[in-house]
């Protein structure tokens, strides 16, 4: 009988053990592989993304009274307080280098998530590597629609894509006459650089411009890294379009500005999509010349209104610790929003197992109150946040961006649009906010 009892106890114990959930190995730290263009052509972008990741690492690992995901408390509560660690690698703005780095991050560093590369062109090159490895990959400031149209299982983007953002610009231009804007804007010239991001913008604009009632009179694609754009400006001047839709990076934008000034070229409206318009350094420099006054462009948030959010202010203070005092630009805001979402996903997954992370990412339903940016929330379809929004802003004579569209936000911003775009003489003669 004693032997039978012992056997029964052993059987019950064995059954008990077999039905127990296997214990998760304790996670010492959550490793995020971050591949960024810290040197090379896109270094100024990479630098902002680096500061963004340092900001998020600080917020997650330390106890901040900020109403954003993982703001209060230290580390991930869902992982027993494990901290986050970004392993940052520079790809020198080169695609093949980025691929090699990503392979190393996955196989050598054993990261749990890849974030990067910050530019759409190079991100499209690393997507297949990460997809075949079965790890989550995110690029929040990447705006090329193609990145999420491939229906990849492991790619996520919280930011809006170019279809959303360029559509905002054309919606504004279309609706503007009904809201007291000019009625004589009929023609448009497209002036874009030659990489994936610029060309995606060009394609979207080519599609949307006629629908918004514009005739495309010139479509110029320029070489990235151009030392002169004088002849391009000559052609723009000859085409004499009412609206110039420009998608150029900061260095080329400066060349364009100088060549335009020398030629005395100024269209009635300059509309932009990202590039220099998103670059905080370029915007700050324009305050000394009035160079950007009247330029309008797309943004993912109402830049002038977002400052009122208490969470934005607090996050910005953390960001400034790393950015040598520079405020968050819209690119940094998009990146930080995305990285905080990633932290929330990891915390909800309570695991660094890729499948659990993927499920938690797909299950996301984040409300706008948790964000530092004006998205309507975060919710995914095929890796794209369908609640990301587009806003149209314009740089005023104060050198700051002001919201023009959507109309409800524009009413709150209460800004009178500058039209027509001021001549170079007027820019020179007006007081400059940066001086």
């Amino acid at each position, binding site marked *: 009988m004693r032997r039978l009892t012992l056997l029964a106890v052993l059987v019950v114990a064995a059954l008990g053990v077999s039905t127990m959930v296997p214990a998760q190995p304790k996670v010492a730290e959550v490793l995020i592989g971050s591949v960024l263009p*810290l*040197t090379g052509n896109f270094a*100024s972008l990479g*630098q902002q993304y680096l500061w963004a990741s340092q900001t998020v690492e600080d917020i997650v690992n330390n106890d901040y009274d900020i109403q954003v995901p993982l703001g209060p408390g230290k580390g991930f509560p869902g992982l027993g307080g494990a901290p986050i660690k970004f392993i940052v690698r520079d790809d020198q703005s080169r695609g093949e280098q980025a691929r090699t780095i990503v392979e190393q991050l996955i196989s050598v560093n054993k990261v749990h998530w890849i974030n990067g590369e910050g530019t759409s062109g190079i991100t499209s090159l690393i997507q297949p590597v990460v997809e075949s490895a079965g790890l989550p990959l995110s690029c929040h400031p990447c705006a090329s629609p193609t990145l999420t149209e491939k229906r990849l299982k492991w790619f996520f983007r919280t930011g809006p894509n170019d279809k959303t953002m360029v559509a905002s610009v054309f919606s504004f231009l279309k609706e503007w006459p009904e809201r007291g804007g000019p009625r004589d804007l009929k023609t448009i010239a497209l002036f874009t650089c030659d990489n994936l991001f610029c060309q995606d913008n060009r394609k979207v604009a080519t599609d949307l411009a006629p629908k918004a009632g514009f005739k495309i009179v010139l479509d110029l694609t320029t070489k990235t890294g151009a*030392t002169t754009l004088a002849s391009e400006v000559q052609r723009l001047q000859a085409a004499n379009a009412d609206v110039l839709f420009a998608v150029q990076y900061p*260095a080329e934008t400066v060349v364009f500005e100088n060549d335009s000034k020398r030629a005395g070229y100024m269209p009635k409206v300059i509309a932009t999509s990202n590039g220099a318009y998103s670059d905080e350094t370029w915007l700050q420099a324009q305050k000394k010349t009035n160079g950007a006054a009247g330029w309008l462009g797309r943004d993912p948030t109402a830049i002038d209104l977002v400052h009122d959010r208490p969470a934005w202010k607090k996050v910005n203070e953390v960001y400034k610790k790393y950015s040598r005092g520079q405020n968050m630009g819209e690119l940094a805001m998009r990146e930080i929003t995305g990285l905080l979402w990633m932290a929330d996903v990891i915390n909800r997954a309570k695991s660094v197992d890729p499948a659990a992370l993927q499920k938690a990412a797909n299950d996301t339903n984040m409300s706008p109150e948790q964000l530092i940016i004006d998205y309507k929330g975060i919710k995914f379809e095929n890796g794209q946040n369908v609640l990301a929004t587009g806003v149209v802003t314009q740089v005023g004579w104060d050198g700051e961006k002001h919201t023009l569209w959507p109309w409800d936000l524009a009413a709150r911003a209460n800004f009178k649009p500058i039209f027509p775009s001021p001549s170079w003489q007027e820019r020179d003669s007006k007081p400059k906010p*940066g001086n």
Partner: protein
Amino acid sequence: MTELAQAVVNGLQMGFLYALVAVGLTIIWGLMEMINFAHGEFLMLGMFGAWWLSAGFHLDPLLAIVPIALAMYLFGMLVYQQLMRRVQGGDPFTQIFATIGLLFLLQNAVVAGFTSDYRFVNDTFLQKLGGVRLTLLGVTFAVPLLLAAGLALLLFLALYLLIERTEFGLALQATSEDRDAARLVGIRPQRMFAVAWGVGAALVAIAGAILVNFFSVYPQVGLQFTVLAYAIVALGGFGSILGTLLAALLVGVIQSVTVVYLPPAFKDAFVFASYLLIGLFRPQGLFGRF
């Protein structure tokens, strides 16, 4: 017709800026036959120097030319003595890798020290003339670029006189042609090479101080000019100062005229196609001596 004339004028104006960038390379590569892939980084250092003196001491880039040229002259000599002298006698590939290493060292040192931000020099003398234009027969001339062109011409003239009309220049040429023979007549080749590197670095840094009036300043800015500078020196003919000037003007005009009639993507393609074409008939370049 006016459109073409305007494109030619635009091209000539840019050509003078290209000539400024290429002139330092004419000395180091064209005359002394040493390879320097860090040439663009010397330009970048000149631009950063001009930005720093402007932002920190409110010194106009045109005035900053003097201290920048002096500093870069010393830097060029230092690079020769500490790096290039050691690899000079070896395989040409050693020079290539040494200067590529120098390129990355300088570029990344500037990234580490100043970050990758774009920087802008504002309110300079040339920028204040930015909106001033002269119009002749319907063709517009930009005054700042005309002044820059004048400066470029002055520099070329000074360099031409230095190389062709002074004992120092003749010694430099003699060293370039036959180092041993030069040594026999009392010339110290190592000193000549060091001075050539100093002069080359100073010239391209002067170009940088002028370019900050027209371009933004960032650590990678040199690269886009380096490739053009190499094409210009090869097109003009190794060792020919006049050839470099004319080749730079030709490159500027080709770029400019191409874009008026064809998509901008062909801009540089036509520059290098013209180099290949000239190379078929005159491998030594337009005015090459060798």
